[in-house]
């Protein structure tokens, strides 16, 4: 035990004192934020503004099409597919002349795709126009129709889904649950790779520096492996705690700065019909903060730590085993890692489903099987409603799983770490696994 502790201490201290630790602790969240910001920016940006020429020879659509900030409609029957481009339109929407109850095909001609968002908007306009026409055809007064169309339904009611389980009532917020679940899943997925690879690199370093045998003459290979794994786990936890601390710090700073003015405004806005952009954003933040607080953090946080550690421990020893059999060639590491990375990537794919459908059979099973449970279960938990037996079974099997992988990996590690200059095949590793003593 004394010796494992020495190994853990070394692994932890050399890493935490390293500049790359400090850099990655700061850069990873920045990268994350940057990634989200960039993808949001580009998805907004990619909605180009379009001016669309509409040829509607009936004239009955004219009053039903409303231009918005993305698409401007201009009715001009002189435009043809040949000249819309030269007149400065990005597309031509052609509504056929004669129709009865059904319109065959409304064609949208453009030289490049307008994008999903734009097409959806155009369809919405057409739907509205057709509905309006149907109303008018049934002799409904135009004024009445307009007043009906102007009703903003969202203002008339408050939608509050409630999940009732026995005596426990909880406000459900699927969007939030999805977000948290997805976030947790991704975080575990990324950390599995980061820290798993760190274990592998550490083992490879020891082997390539030829220090492995020196150490192993004082420490059992198992102690060295476990010491490394636990040491790096401690590094991971440290990093996680720093991030959590940063988030708490930043959000309290943010609410201190933004808090008084905008939030008060936003509260006031609740009573006013008028909405300007700034206030609606503040409202958004306010409601996000409110719903964020609704999430079942007392369950999510301990579970996250459990699955973070459990998933890491499950895979870390396998990464260590791979590191131990690699010789000088990094290419070799790539191909040997494949059997480990595949289930992790597969878990990630299942996780995207599980975040959206926490109770689908694939989500349930993948959240129990230890290969994928660390990633998938964290996507399910924020939605609530995971039965206790599933959670317990998942946790127990993850613990049993990592004990098993550690024991198996140790057998490969023990032989691999002292083997030089020989390319090890999977078949040989299999033999090492089943060798006694």
């Amino acid at each position, binding site marked *: 035990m004394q010796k494992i502790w020495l190994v853990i201490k070394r692994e932890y201290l050399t890493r935490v004192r390293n500049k790359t630790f400090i850099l990655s602790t700061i850069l990873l969240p920045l990268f994350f934020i940057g990634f989200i910001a960039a993808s949001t920016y580009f998805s907004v940006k990619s909605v180009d503004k379009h001016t669309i020429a509409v040829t509607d020879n009936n004239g009955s659509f004219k009053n039903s099409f409303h231009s918005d900030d993305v698409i401007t409609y201009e009715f001009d029957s002189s435009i043809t597919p040949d000249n819309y481009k030269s007149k400065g339109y990005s597309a031509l929407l052609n509504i056929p002349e004669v129709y009865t109850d059904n319109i065959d095909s409304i064609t949208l001609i453009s030289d490049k795709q307008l994008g999903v968002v734009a097409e959806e908007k155009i369809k919405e306009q057409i739907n509205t126009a057709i509905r309006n026409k149907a109303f008018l055809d049934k002799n409904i007064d135009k004024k009445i129709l307009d007043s009906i169309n102007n009703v903003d339904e969202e203002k008339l009611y408050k939608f509050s889904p409630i999940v009732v389980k026995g005596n426990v009532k909880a406000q459900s917020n699927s969007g939030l649950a999805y977000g948290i679940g997805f976030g947790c899943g991704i975080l575990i997925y990324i950390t599995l790779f980061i820290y798993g690879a760190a274990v592998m690199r550490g083992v490879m370093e020891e082997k390539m520096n030829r220090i492995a045998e020196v150490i192993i003459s*004082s420490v059992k290979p198992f102690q060295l492996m476990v010491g490394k794994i636990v040491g790096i786990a401690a590094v991971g936890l440290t990093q996680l705690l720093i991030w959590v601390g940063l988030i708490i710090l930043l959000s309290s700073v943010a609410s201190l700065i933004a808090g008084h003015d905008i939030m008060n405004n936003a509260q006031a806005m609740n009573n006013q019909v008028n909405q300007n952009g700034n206030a609606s954003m503040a409202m958004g933040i306010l409601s996000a903060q409110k719903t964020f607080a609704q999430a079942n953090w007392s369950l999510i946080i301990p579970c996250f730590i459990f699955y973070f550690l459990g998933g890491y421990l499950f895979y870390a020893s396998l990464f260590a085993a791979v590191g131990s059999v690699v010789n000088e060639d990094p290419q070799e590491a790539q191909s040997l890692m494949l059997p480990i990375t595949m289930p992790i990537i597969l878990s990630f794919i299942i996780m995207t489903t599980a975040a959206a459908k926490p109770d689908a059979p694939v989500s349930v099973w993948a959240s129990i099987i230890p290969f994928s449970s660390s990633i998938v279960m964290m996507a399910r938990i924020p939605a609530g409603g995971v039965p206790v037996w599933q959670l317990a079974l998942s946790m127990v099997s993850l613990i049993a799983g990592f004990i098993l992988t550690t024991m198996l990996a140790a057998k490969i590690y023990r032989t691999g770490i002292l083997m030089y200059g020989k390319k090890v095949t999977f078949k040989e590793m299999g033999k090492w696994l089943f060798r006694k003593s």
Partner: protein
Amino acid sequence: MTILELQNLKKYYASQKAVDDISFTIEKGSVFGLLGPNGAGKTTLLRMITGIFYPDSGNILFEGKKFNALNDIINIGYMPEERGLYKKMKIGEQALYLAQLKGLSRKIALEKIKEWFVKFEMQSWWNKKVEDLSKGMSQKLQFVTTVLHEPKLLILDEPFSGLDPVNSNLIKEEIFKLAKNGTTVIFSTHRMEQVEEICDHIILVNKGTKILDGSVKQIKQDCKENKFKVGFETVPDIQHNDLFDVVEQNSDSAIIKLQEAIKPKQVLQYLIGQNADIISFNEILPSLNDIFISKVENTKLSRQFETVN
């Protein structure tokens, strides 16, 4: 007094009998040479003595008691052939870490490190990293970390590989000093000139079995071929006689090989009878190198894979 005794040690791998029934004893305070060609099973043998591997069968007795890696490791210093250090770690911390892993307390480890660093003039290295050291320097550091805990048994596998003559001499001196102070040294190598210089007792292993065991002197006697070098003023005609064959002849000397049961005295008498002007008469003892080559020669150079069981 024996410090280490190996009894019928066996270790088989899937494709090789790495160590096949080897026994020997090592006297306390001796410098023991473990010789053998590449792949003879030396490293496997050493790994069993250091507790890295368990033998398939046989016993290892350390100071008369069954070897227990957990407790006896503190008494063993092992410098493997494949050796190295953490490149990014500071030298002082690294030495401390390795000493603590052996089981020394932090306080004692620090004292010993300082002592050795002074001895090898390495005090200024403490906060440097291993990657800043030259190869010779890092070998020196490696040696220090191996002997730091004052092991009773010091095992050195090819300790001089990659060292220049100056540094090898420095380390050789230290080995001698340690041996004089009672440390037993196992010295594994295939560099024979070093063995002749350093070792009291050697064993030669090949293909997992022991083929020679004894003191250097004894082995040379056992393996001698009764060859003598005779120096003459002018070499007489000695080609034909019953006492010896002429192996090699120069203008002023000849190497002769005595027939079985012939004493040098008889040869000298014969030569004097021939009225030869003898200047010198020396026995030619084989060098360890010759013995090594002749013993290993008739086996295949590289070990073939074989099936066990």
